[in-house]
C-alpha cells in the first residue's frame, strides 16, 4: 500500500457508488419494519397518559380474555435487577433504570412511559387489548423545567436519589442526580487579571434525534430458549448485551441480526422494544413484531438534553482569553445520565485558556430519558461559549475569526479537561474560513453573519473485521457495525487500498452477533477510524498470507516477494514472476486451504475533531422569521476516505444544528403531556428552509491511523447553534440567548431592543 507520486491514494479519497446503494434506491433494502416472519404476532405497548403517577393497581385479565390476544407482560415479568447488578464495571448505563424505563415498575415518570405490552394476532386486536388493561394511578405533581426541578420544593421523581459529587452527601433526596466539577488553573486569579468580563445566561430546549425510521423489531424464541432478534440499531452487540442483562440470559442464547438502520444519530444506542418482544415471543411461542408510532418515538425515546447555562469569560484588551467559568444544568429526563460532563469538557476545548472552571448538574425531570444525540452534551455548551466569544469580539471591535485565531488551541495546548492536544487542525479551519469567499460576501439590510467553532473527542474502541478471499479472487469484508451513513463504502475502500485492487472486487457485509467477534456500537464518530483500522490490519494480514502462499508455490523465501497491484511479484532467476490474487485464490487448496484474516482490536489514538462554521441569515423585522442565506461548514477531517459521504456528514450535522437553533422544541401542556409529538408541529428543517450547505474538508492526517483518518460525524452539529445565534444577533443588533430562535421569540427580542434604543 503506497501513495501514488502525486501523493494521493489509489482508492482512499475516491467516490465510488456505495455498495448498498442499489438496494436503497430500488426499495429492496430491508429496514427494521420491513422484516416479516410468516406466523408473527403483532405487539403493542401500553403507555402512561400521565407525566408522574404512582401505579396503584394493574389488571390485565380483561385484555387477556380478548380473542386473539396471545400474551401480555408487565414489569413483574422482568427479572429484578439489584443495586449491585445495576452497572457493569461501574460504568453506565444503569440497568436498573433501563429496566424501569422499558416497563414502569411502581411509578410512571413521563407521559408515554411504557407499562405493559401485548402480543395479538393483528395490530387492531393488540390495540383493543391495550384499552382493556385496567390501571389505577395516583397522579403526582410533576416537573418539566430543569430550573424548577432543581428548586428545593420541586416534586421529587426518585425517593432514593441523593446527589452524587457533593461532600458531605445531602440528607434528603432531590432531582439533582450528580454534581460534576472540572477545574483548570485558578479562575479567581484569571478573572482578577481580566480587562473585560462578560456574563450571560443561556437556555436550550430538548431536541429529538428525528430519525425518519421509527423503532421496530422482531423476536423469535425457540422452545429451548434460543432467541433471535432482528432490528435496526446502532449496534447489534449492544442490543444483545442489553437484552441479556435485562432478561438475565447468557449472551450465547441470543443472536441479533442487524437490519438496515433508518437514521440513529445516537438515539438508537439503547433498547426500548427488543426485551419486550423477546418476553412476548417466549410467552406466546410465536415470533412477535413491535413497531413504534411516530408519537411513541417522540413521547418515549431520546431526546437530547435541554439545558440552562450560566457562563462567564474574562479577557485582556488585546483579546487574550484569561478565564472562563460555567454552570451547566442539563435535563437527564426521567432517569439520571445527561451528558453534562461532556458539555463541561468540550465548551472551551477549542481555546488555550489558562483558567477554566466548569460545574455541571445532571437533573431528572418528568420527560423521556435523554439519549445520545451526535456529540452528546457539546452543542448546548458550545452555544453558550461561542456566543460569549462573539460578544467579546463585538465589544473589542475585533473580527470574530481573528479573536478565535488569537486564542486557538494548537499542538501542545493543554486542554481545560486534561490532556495535551497533538496534531490537531483547528487553526487550519479558522484560516480556511477567513479565506473562503463566503466570509467576504456582501451583506444587505437585516442580514447578519455569524461564525462559531466546535470540538469533539472522537472515539476508537473495540472493533472486529474479517476478510475472506473468495475462490475467484474477490474479497469479502465483514464487520459488525451497522452502516448508518456510508461506512460500507469506507470499509471497502480501505481494504481495496491495502490489497491494491479495484474497490468493486471488494464486497462489504455486516454480520450478526453469532458470525463475528464483538464490536462496540456505531457511535462516537468511531467506525471509519476504529473499524477501518481493524479492516486495514486484516487486509495487511491477508496480504502477508498471500505472499506466504506465493512463496510456497514458487518455493522461494517469502521475503523475496512483493505485493503490487493486487499481485504477488518476485524476481526468480532474473525474470519477473507474477501471481495474481485470482490465481492465488484458485490454488488455495494446494497451499494450505482457504485464505482469510480476522482481526479484533481495541483501537486507540482517535484524533480530536474541530470545525468552524459560517452562517449568514436574514431576519424579517416584521415577523421575526429567520432565513438562512448562506452556510459553510469547515472541518478538519483527517483523511476523507469517501469525500462525498464526509461532506454529507458535515451538511447533515449542520442542518440538524440549524433546526436546533431555529425551530425544534417540545411543547407541553399543564399536565406534562407533549402537545407536538409529530413532524407537523415538531418542525425539523425541510428542503425549502435551506440553501446549499457548502463544505470545506481540511485534511490534517491523524498520525495514529494508517490512512490518517479521524472521526467526522459528530463535530458538525456543534458549531451551528452558536453560528446561527451569532448571525441572528448581529442581524438584529441584539443578543439572542434562548433557543430555539422561533419567529415570536426573535420578534419580541427585536421589539425589546427597539424600545431600549428609544
Amino acid at each position, binding site marked *: 500500500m503506497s501513495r501514488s507520486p502525486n501523493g494521493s491514494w489509489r482508492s482512499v479519497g475516491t*467516490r465510488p*457508488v*456505495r455498495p*448498498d*446503494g*442499489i438496494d*436503497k*434506491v*430500488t*426499495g*429492496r*433494502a*430491508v*429496514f427494521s*419494519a*420491513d422484516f*416479516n416472519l410468516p406466523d408473527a404476532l403483532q405487539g403493542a405497548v401500553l403507555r402512561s397518559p400521565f407525566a408522574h403517577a404512582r401505579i396503584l393497581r394493574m389488571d390485565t385479565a380483561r385484555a387477556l380474555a380478548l380473542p386473539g390476544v396471545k400474551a401480555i407482560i408487565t414489569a413483574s415479568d422482568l427479572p429484578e435487577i439489584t443495586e449491585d447488578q445495576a452497572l457493569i464495571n461501574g460504568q453506565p448505563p444503569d440497568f436498573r433504570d433501563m429496566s424501569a424505563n422499558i416497563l414502569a415498575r411502581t411509578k410512571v415518570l413521563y407521559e408515554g412511559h411504557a407499562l405493559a405490552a401485548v402480543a395479538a394476532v393483528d395490530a*387492531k386486536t393488540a390495540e383493543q387489548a391495550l384499552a382493556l388493561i385496567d390501571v389505577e394511578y395516583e397522579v403526582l405533581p410533576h416537573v418539566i423545567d430543569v430550573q424548577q426541578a432543581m428548586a428545593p420544593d420541586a416534586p421529587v421523581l426518585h425517593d432514593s436519589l441523593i446527589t452524587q459529587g457533593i461532600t458531605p452527601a445531602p440528607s434528603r433526596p432531590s432531582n439533582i442526580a450528580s454534581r460534576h466539577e472540572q477545574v483548570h488553573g485558578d479562575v479567581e486569579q484569571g478573572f482578577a487579571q481580566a480587562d473585560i468580563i462578560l456574563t450571560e445566561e443561556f437556555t436550550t430546549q430538548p431536541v429529538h*434525534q*428525528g*430519525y*425518519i*425510521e*421509527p423503532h421496530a423489531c422482531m423476536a423469535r424464541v425457540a422452545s429451548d430458549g434460543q432467541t433471535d432478534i432482528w432490528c435496526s440499531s446502532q449496534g447489534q452487540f449492544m442490543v444483545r448485551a442489553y437484552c441479556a442483562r435485562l432478561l438475565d440470559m447468557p449472551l450465547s442464547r441470543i443472536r441479533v441480526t442487524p437490519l*438496515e*438502520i*433508518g*437514521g*440513529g*444519530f445516537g438515539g438508537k444506542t439503547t433498547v426500548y422494544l427488543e426485551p419486550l418482544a423477546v418476553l412476548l415471543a417466549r410467552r406466546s411461542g410465536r415470533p412477535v413484531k413491535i413497531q413504534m*408510532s*411516530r408519537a411513541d418515538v417522540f413521547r418515549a425515546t431520546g431526546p437530547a438534553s435541554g439545558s440552562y447555562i450560566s457562563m462567564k469569560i474574562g479577557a485582556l484588551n488585546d483579546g487574550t482569553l484569561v478565564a472562563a467559568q460555567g454552570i451547566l444544568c442539563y435535563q437527564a429526563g426521567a432517569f439520571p445520565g445527561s451528558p453534562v460532563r461532556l458539555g463541561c469538557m468540550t465548551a472551551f476545548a477549542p481555546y488555550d485558556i489558562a483558567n477554566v472552571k466548569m460545574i455541571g448538574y445532571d437533573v431528572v425531570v418528568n420527560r423521556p430519558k435523554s439519549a445520545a444525540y451526535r456529540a452528546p452534551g457539546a452543542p448546548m455548551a458550545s452555544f453558550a461559549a461561542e456566543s460569549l466569544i462573539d460578544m467579546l469580539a463585538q465589544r473589542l471591535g475585533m473580527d470574530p475569526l481573528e479573536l478565535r485565531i488569537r486564542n486557538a488551541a494548537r499542538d501542545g495546548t493543554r486542554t481545560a479537561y486534561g490532556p495535551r492536544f497533538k496534531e490537531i487542525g483547528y487553526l487550519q479551519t479558522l484560516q480556511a474560513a477567513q479565506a473562503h469567499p463566503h466570509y467576504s460576501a456582501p451583506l444587505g439590510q437585516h442580514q447578519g453573519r455569524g461564525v462559531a467553532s466546535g470540538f469533539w473527542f472522537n472515539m476508537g474502541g473495540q472493533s472486529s473485521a474479517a476478510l475472506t478471499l473468495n475462490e475467484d479472487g474477490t474479497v469479502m469484508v465483514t464487520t459488525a457495525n451497522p452502516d*448508518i*451513513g*456510508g461506512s460500507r463504502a469506507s470499509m471497502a475502500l480501505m481494504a481495496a487500498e491495502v490489497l491494491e485492487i479495484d474497490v468493486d472486487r471488494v464486497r462489504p457485509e455486516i454480520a450478526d452477533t453469532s458470525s463475528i467477534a464483538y464490536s462496540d456500537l456505531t457511535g462516537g464518530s468511531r467506525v471509519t477510524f476504529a473499524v477501518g483500522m481493524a479492516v486495514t490490519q486484516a487486509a495487511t494480514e491477508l496480504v502477508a498470507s498471500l505472499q506466504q502462499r506465493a512463496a510456497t508455490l514458487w518455493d522461494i523465501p517469502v521475503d523475496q516477494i512483493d505485493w503490487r497491484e493486487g499481485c504477488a511479484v518476485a524476481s526468480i532467476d532474473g525474470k519477473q514472476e507474477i501471481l495474481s490474487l485470482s490465481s492465488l485464490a484458485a490454488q488455495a487448496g494446494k497451499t494450505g486451504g482457504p485464505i482469510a484474516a480476522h482481526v479484533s482490536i481495541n483501537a486507540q489514538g482517535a484524533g480530536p475533531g474541530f470545525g468552524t462554521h459560517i452562517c449568514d441569515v436574514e431576519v424579517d423585522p416584521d415577523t421575526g422569521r429567520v432565513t438562512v442565506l448562506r452556510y459553510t461548514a469547515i472541518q478538519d477531517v483527517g483523511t476523507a476516505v*469517501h469525500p*462525498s*459521504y464526509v*461532506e*454529507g456528514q458535515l*451538511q*447533515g*450535522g*449542520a*442542518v*440538524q444544528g440549524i433546526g436546533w437553533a431555529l425551530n425544534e422544541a417540545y411543547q407541553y401542556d399543564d399536565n406534562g403531556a407533549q402537545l407536538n409529538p*409529530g*413532524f*407537523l408541529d415538531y418542525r*425539523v*428543517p*425541510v*428542503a*425549502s*428552509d*435551506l440553501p*446549499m*450547505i457548502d463544505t470545506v474538508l481540511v485534511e490534517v492526517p491523524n498520525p495514529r491511523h494508517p490512512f490518517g483518518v479521524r472521526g467526522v460525524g459528530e463535530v458538525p452539529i456543534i458549531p451551528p447553534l452558536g453560528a446561527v445565534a451569532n448571525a441572528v444577533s448581529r442581524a438584529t443588533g441584539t443578543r439572542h440567548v434562548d433557543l430555539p430562535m422561533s419567529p415570536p421569540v426573535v420578534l419580541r427580542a427585536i421589539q425589546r431592543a427597539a424600545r431600549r434604543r428609544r
Partner: protein
Amino acid sequence: MKQHICTHINGEATEFLCDAADTLLQVLRDNLRLTGTKEGCGTGDCGACSVMLNDRLVCSCLVLAVEAQHSQIETVEGLANGDSLHPLQQAFLDHAALQCGICTPGLLVAAKALLDHNPSPSESEVRFWIAGNLCRCTGYDKIVRAILAAADNMRTTHDGAQS
C-alpha cells in the same frame, strides 16, 4: 367485512382484500409486501410513504386502500426498468444523495412526479416540491443536486432522441 379492490400497481393488475379502515400504505407493506414504501410518521408529515395514485403524488398513509379501487399506483419498486435504473435513481447514487436511505424511496417518487410535469425545475422549485419529504441525514444539499442533475440528464437524453 373485507373489501375486494382491483388496481394496477407498477403496471401489473393487482387485487387485494382489505378492511375499510386500512390505509393504502398498510396494504402495500403488509398485504402485498411492497416494503419499499416506508412509514415514517403515519400522519402525512414526512413523505416516506409517497406513491403515485393515478398520476398524482400522495402520501399513501393518508389514502384509504378502498379509495384505490380501479386506480393506477406507482411505487419505488416500479421506478427502474428491469435492471436499468431510472435516471433519478442513478443520480442519487452518483451524488451520494442518501445516507441511511429510509427517505430515499419517497424522495425518488416525489422527484419523479416533479420532473414528469416540470422537466427543468429551478433549485427553488425542487426545494419547495420536496419540502414534504423529510430527510434527517443529508441536509438536502446532495438530494437537490441529484434531482437537478437527473433533470438535466433526462432533458439531454430526450433532446438527443428528438434531434
